[in-house]
């Protein structure tokens, strides 16, 4: 304790006298004059983070590098998720706080005024101003030449886009006619809504600003179809493939794909400092090595990663634990933040008429759910440490009630068989039930094959459901193909996890429990229909689903929390009663491997994409290396 206090004093002295010490990676550049000193790089008012005992952390020092393992070049996006610099972001208690923004004002979810930090700069040193918002709004999002196929759903409140205004060079305003409660959470999402872009850089790829000859040359050089594609490719900020694109994130990509090793260096102009005035991130460099996902646990166990949660699963825990001492890391167990670790989704929009009829009978879905021996799955695959539950929110959510988790989730094959008999599904002499059109019930469950856990769960369910007279077959396909097959209605049932955000408050959108998105596995066509305002997909012809959409509409225009809570409760009740997805277990654990040199990584945490962004909400820029420079 005293040590840190002393350190703080020393740091303060440094800040006061000679300006903060430069990060090892940048010291030389600053010394040679290629980069201005830290004081000139920071915004006038940087965001000051409390990194001390009050947040169970220790102030660190700059330097060092972290190695991580990823399976695919697409995983570049994980750096944006982990980095989690957002206009507005969640803190650990999931409250919205301005981050890149200096402040914001929200008038009844209709008028949003965003104030930028004076002196805030992009990673290339160019100023970050209202022009970057105007460019994105006028020249990209709503430019008819860009032909983006319409605005994102989030921009449309009551079907109408906002009015965008630049108030002054550091202030912008979005005004909707009706409330848009989705706007701020979208800015804070793990995959944020892009409402700003590095306009100074990107204008050279926009027909409105660029010299036509040069633009043509660029299009030819990048081998793309037209300048619009070029613009989209160069502006890709969520998956930072373009090393030249300026960013506001803590680390910036230095490597052009394709590569098996991506290096991310610290953003010299990053806007956060710790309470001692040390610019974040502490870590100078992230190194992302690409490896086959199936050998990532093995590589992690042999100490090839300093910080790893992705591609590890609970079954690897024992193995990873064995390597702890040898390779100087610690395995922590974080709780999976999804609503359900494994869930089965009957496709209510399947093109197979016979199955569609059966799936839409709530008795069938309830019978399937009651036919699963969750206790056995929990014991066999999760050492009994998970919680058996239907697919709903987690017990950690204020919206959780016991009856939601228990709904049709207890193993009762007799009751399940009785329901199926009541539906008139006869058994063939071989014991397999027959569909109303006479075909045997061969139920093909689609999986991405990414996790062996899903396969094991399916194997156990196969025998459980055989007792109900349903034969289960598994087909695995690659994730993109899996998704497009589901969306096309050519699948019967798919296995995936429950809702992303397992512990929402009433302020979070209930959209994952409502047909709103084409990628929802239980009702892709209805999701398409709702999200396109009826121009594609199928009209909802199932009453409880329509009820959900109506409730969602009410939630969108709800003004007070009490009303929102009531709507949430109704939505969850309908989902529990209707068993739109069959949850198996929840609150499963996932190993997180952390090098013993890496400080400030929480011992316990929630592993979830949205809203936590895995390490994002835990502020990865506050992680630091104890022995920077050693070992790597």
């Amino acid at each position: 304790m005293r040590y840190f206090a002393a350190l703080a004093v020393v740091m303060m002295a440094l800040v006061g006298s000679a300006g903060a010490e430069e990060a090892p990676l940048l010291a030389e550049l600053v010394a040679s004059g290629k980069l201005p000193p830290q004081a000139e790089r920071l915004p006038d008012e940087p965001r000051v983070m409390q990194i001390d005992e009050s947040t169970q952390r220790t102030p660190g020092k700059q330097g060092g590098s972290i190695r991580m393992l990823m399976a695919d070049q697409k995983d570049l996006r994980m750096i944006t998720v982990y980095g989690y610099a957002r206009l507005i972001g969640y803190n650990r208690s999931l409250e919205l706080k301005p981050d890149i923004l200096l402040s914001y004002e929200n008038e009844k979810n209709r008028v949003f005024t965003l104030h930028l930090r004076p002196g805030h700069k992009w990673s290339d040193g160019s100023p970050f101003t209202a022009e970057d918002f105007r460019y994105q709004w006028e020249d990209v999002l709503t430019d008819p030449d860009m032909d983006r196929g319409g605005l994102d759903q989030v921009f449309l409140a009551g079907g109408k886009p906002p009015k965008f205004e630049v108030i002054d060079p550091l202030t912008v305003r979005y005004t909707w006619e009706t409330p848009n409660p989705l706007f701020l959470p979208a800015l804070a999402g793990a995959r944020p809504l892009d409402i700003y872009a590095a306009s100074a850089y990107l204008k050279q790829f926009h027909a409105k600003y660029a010299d036509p000859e040069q633009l043509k040359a660029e299009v030819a050089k990048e081998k793309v179809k037209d300048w619009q594609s070029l613009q989209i490719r160069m502006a890709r900020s969520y998956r930072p493939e373009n090393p030249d694109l300026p960013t506001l994130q803590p680390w910036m990509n230095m490597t052009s794909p394709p590569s098996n090793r991506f290096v991310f260096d610290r953003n010299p102009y990053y806007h956060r400092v710790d309470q001692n005035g040390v610019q974040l991130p502490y870590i100078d460099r992230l190194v992302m090595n690409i490896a086959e996902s199936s050998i990532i646990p093995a590589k992690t166990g042999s100490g090839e990663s300093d910080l790893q949660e992705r591609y590890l699963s609970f079954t690897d825990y024992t193995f990873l634990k064995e390597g702890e001492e040898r390779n100087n890391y610690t395995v922590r167990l974080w709780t999976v933040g999804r609503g359900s670790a494994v869930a089965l989704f009957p496709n209510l929009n399947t093109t197979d008429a016979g199955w569609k009829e059966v799936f839409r009978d709530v008795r069938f879905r309830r019978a399937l759910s009651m036919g699963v021996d969750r206790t056995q799955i929990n014991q066999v695959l999760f050492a009994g440490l998970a919680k058996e539950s239907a697919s709903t929110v987690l017990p950690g959510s204020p919206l959780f009630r016991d009856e939601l988790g228990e709904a049709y989730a207890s193993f009762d094959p007799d009751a399940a068989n009785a329901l199926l008999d009541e539906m008139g599904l006869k058994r063939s002499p071989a014991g397999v039930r027959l569909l109303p059109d006479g075909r045997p019930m061969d139920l093909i469950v689609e999986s991405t094959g990414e996790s062996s856990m899903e396969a094991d769960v399916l194997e156990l369910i196969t025998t459980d459901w055989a007792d109900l007279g349903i034969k289960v077959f598994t087909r695995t396909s690659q994730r993109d193909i899996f998704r497009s097959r589901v969306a096309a209605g050519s699948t019967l049932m798919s296995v995936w996890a429950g809702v992303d955000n397992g512990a929402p408050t009433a302020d979070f959108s209930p959209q994952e429990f409502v047909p709103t998105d084409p990628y929802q596995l239980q009702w892709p066509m209805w999701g398409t229909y709702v999200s396109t305002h009826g121009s594609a997909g199928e009209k909802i012809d199932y009453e409880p689903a329509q009820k959900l959409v109506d409730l969602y509409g009410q939630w969108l225009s709800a003004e007070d929390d009490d009303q929102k809570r009531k709507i949430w409760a109704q939505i969850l009740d309908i989902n529990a009663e209707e068993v739109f997805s069959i949850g198996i277990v929840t609150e499963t654990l996932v190993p997180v491997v952390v090098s013993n040199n890496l400080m400030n990584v929480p011992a316990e945490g929630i592993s979830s994409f949205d809203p936590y962004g895995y390490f994002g909400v835990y502020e990865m820029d506050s992680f630091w290396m104890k022995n920077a420079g050693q070992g790597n």
Partner: protein
Amino acid sequence: MTLPKNAAPLAHTVTDAPFDPEAIYQYTDAQKSLFEASQLRLMWWKFRRHKPALISAIFLGLLYLSTLFSEVLAPYNLHTRHSGSIYAPPQSVHLFHDGQLRAPFVYGYDFKLNMENLKREYVPNTDKIETIRWFCSGDDYDFWGVIPASFHIACPAEGGSLFLLGTDRLGRDVLSRIIYGARISLTIGLLGVGVSLVLGILIGGMAGYYGGLFDVLSQRLIEVIQSIPSIPLWLALAAILPITWSPIFVYFGITVILGLLDWTGLARTVRSKLLALREEDYVSAAQVMGASSFRIVSRHLIPGFASHLIATATIAIPTMILGETTLSFLGLGLRAPITSWGVLLTEAQNINAVALYPWLLWPVLPVILVVLAYNFLGDGLRDAADPYK
């Protein structure tokens, strides 16, 4: 001597003394039985002397015999899961307890979940003596999928366990699964080789014997088939097999696929052998005597290179077994719930199996042994098929 005029017959005499083939040289009984022995008998004599081949033949014979009685030999049913004994290590059979000889028994396990590293720890408890039951009634099964029964050669003690090779992640006995897996893995080789032998001899034989247009066409076809990269082709073919087919059809489909791809090499050899042999005098003699093509090929030509065929077949069977193992290992071949050695190895295909549960790799052993045995057997048979050499 001058020739008689007008082509009159030569003068000759015929003796009426009985013909005695041994008049000049008296054969011993041993020689007689050697010279009069049939081809098969000669092969057997020769083969008998090749000890590794003989042992291999007996070993393979026993294995094939076992596939007829897998249900009886395996201590557990193929699908029995023991959720209380997941990843249990192998139990060893003991004969002595406290220095006293007893009927074979295993020590029961005390199970504890180590909460520190979540490892399932099994400690043999020397107080729990679980005597193995013999010729007993155990897990229920349908013999050959038809007759319900529960008879086993060996069963665990009542309430006890008998995991001689440990259990897998769902608590299934690995030994039982290997025994059941032999049924698929050993026969898939036979069926596949059968298909490829028939195709190879038929197409190669016709191409070699008749030549001409058929020869040209079949040779080009072989070139096309051989030029197709095999793994993508397997992938495609495995994907074509409908998912709802019963596993046994899938199994048959894979066999036929393997066989359909494998005949080309054999067909080429058969053709070249026939091209050479059909010019031999004894073939001309048979043709002059009016033998049919089929008779000439099957009676006169094929025995001429039977040794080669046997060698090819016995080497092809282990290739097929390995092929099935490879395909299943890659996830393209057989799928659970069918259990073959390849499927078992697929399930052991992760770092956990290697580091923590090495007994899951036991199916490797029968694969190696069978492949070795087939190679020895093929060696012995090839030597034996040319007994005069």
